[in-house]
């Protein structure tokens, strides 16, 4: 599974992207975020306030309870400010 990070989420985690293999019980994006937070302070710092984070699965906006599967690209980022 490919994880990608943008803006201050990227800066706080310290990575642009990474490949991870979460355990089978991690079935949603919410569970994935919990699993990441357990891996280190940088993830906790970045993902602590979930109301401030938006998520996308395979380049489409989704909710935190979206189911994920192997081979997905999951993105974490702040609310967009383009235009």
């Amino acid at each position, binding site marked *: 599974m490919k994880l990608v990070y*943008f803006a201050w989420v990227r800066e706080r985690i310290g990575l642009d992207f990474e490949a991870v293999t979460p355990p089978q019980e991690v079935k949603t994006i919410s569970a994935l975020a919990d699993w990441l937070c357990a891996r280190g302070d940088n993830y906790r710092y970045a993902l602590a306030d979930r109301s401030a984070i938006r998520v*996308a699965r395979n*380049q489409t906006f989704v909710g935190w309870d979206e189911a994920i599967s192997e081979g997905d690209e999951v*993105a974490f*980022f*702040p609310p*967009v400010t*383009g*235009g």
Partner: protein
Amino acid sequence: MTVKIQKEDFDAPLEVGAMYDNCANPGAVVTFTGLVRSRDNDKELIALELEHYPGMGEKQLEKIVAEARKRWDLQDCLVIHRFGRLKPKEQIVLVACISAHRGDAFAAASFLVDWLKTKAPFWKKEIYADGSTWVQERREDIERAG
């Protein structure tokens, strides 16, 4: 219908001029150009850094354009969004809509710009002499885009 995400600057008249050939009976052309403002508060901005999500950016812009075509009678429309480091007065975004009548062109252009602000995966960082800050979403933008 064209969507571009690019680092380079764009030539708005050239881009809009190229659209005319696609239009059977154009009557109204509405364009929106977004520029980097030099200041929103008392501090002078040095630059804006625009980060984007390659791949998803194009997808979202195409979705937005398809939605606009469904809602209004458009003969052609165009969205160009830049990324990278931009200085004050530089162009960030161009939206252009061509239709037979002004109502469709104005409504579609305004809708596209509102949606860009809330649905396109771009993030702005303001660079000042004494530091930088990520721009926060504006509640007004979210309400406007509905």
